[in-house]
């Protein structure tokens, strides 16, 4: 791409580190794209200062997104009482009850309707699913 100055490799690396701690892959992808786009056109020194700001407070963004996600799930799902057996399967056996959930801005993601864990991909860590996609 020609035009505004692209982020220097160090800045891209820093952004990658800054978003690593975010709770879901969707968040990581979104904020990586957002942060990189914001760096375009800045001088390298400013880019690096900006990235230091991002890297210095990853837990704040993680906490903010976690709170938002929890609220979204609470609104998206019916306030059903979860049986103890289902909670046990989620917590200890990792048998989740996946459900597609919509966010207010129209995006969709998959999370367990019981324990609120975000799905990390079908080939990823959460391989033990009970009944696959529910909904």
């Amino acid at each position: 791409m020609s035009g505004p100055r692209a982020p220097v490799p160090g800045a891209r690396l820093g952004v990658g580190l800054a978003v690593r701690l975010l709770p879901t892959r969707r968040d990581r992808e979104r904020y990586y794209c957002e942060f990189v786009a914001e760096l375009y056109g800045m001088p390298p020194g400013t880019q690096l200062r900006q990235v230091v700001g991002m890297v210095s407070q990853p837990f704040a963004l993680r906490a903010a997104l976690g709170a938002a996600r929890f609220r979204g799930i609470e609104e998206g799902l019916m306030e059903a009482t979860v049986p103890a057996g289902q909670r046990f399967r989620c917590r200890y056996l990792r048998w989740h009850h996946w459900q597609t959930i919509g966010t207010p801005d129209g995006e969709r993601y998959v999370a367990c309707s019981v324990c609120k864990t975000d799905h990390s991909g079908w080939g990823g860590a959460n391989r033990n699913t009970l009944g696959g996609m529910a909904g």
Partner: protein
Amino acid sequence: MTIPTQLVLEALLADPERELYGVEIGDLATLRSGTVHPILARLEAVGWLRSRWEDIDPRSEGRPPRRYYRLTAEGARAAQDALARAYRPSPTLRLRPQVGEA
């Protein structure tokens, strides 16, 4: 409400119709990106803000699209109310002895 949140809301309320991206908001609020984005995420989660990807052709612009934020109508009203309250400490707080007072 924290001071950084007040600064972000003031920046957005300066022109509620205008869409701003993270760095612009940070510049207006004199805050770093690491401080601004968590606040934006929280404000968006409570419905005070709406965000969208910029609708551009990255090839012609030479850069990827930015994420733009804008106050919702409800958010602008709520932010004004919240800022008005934030700037007026309650009588209880005003009467509380300050550190260092005899």
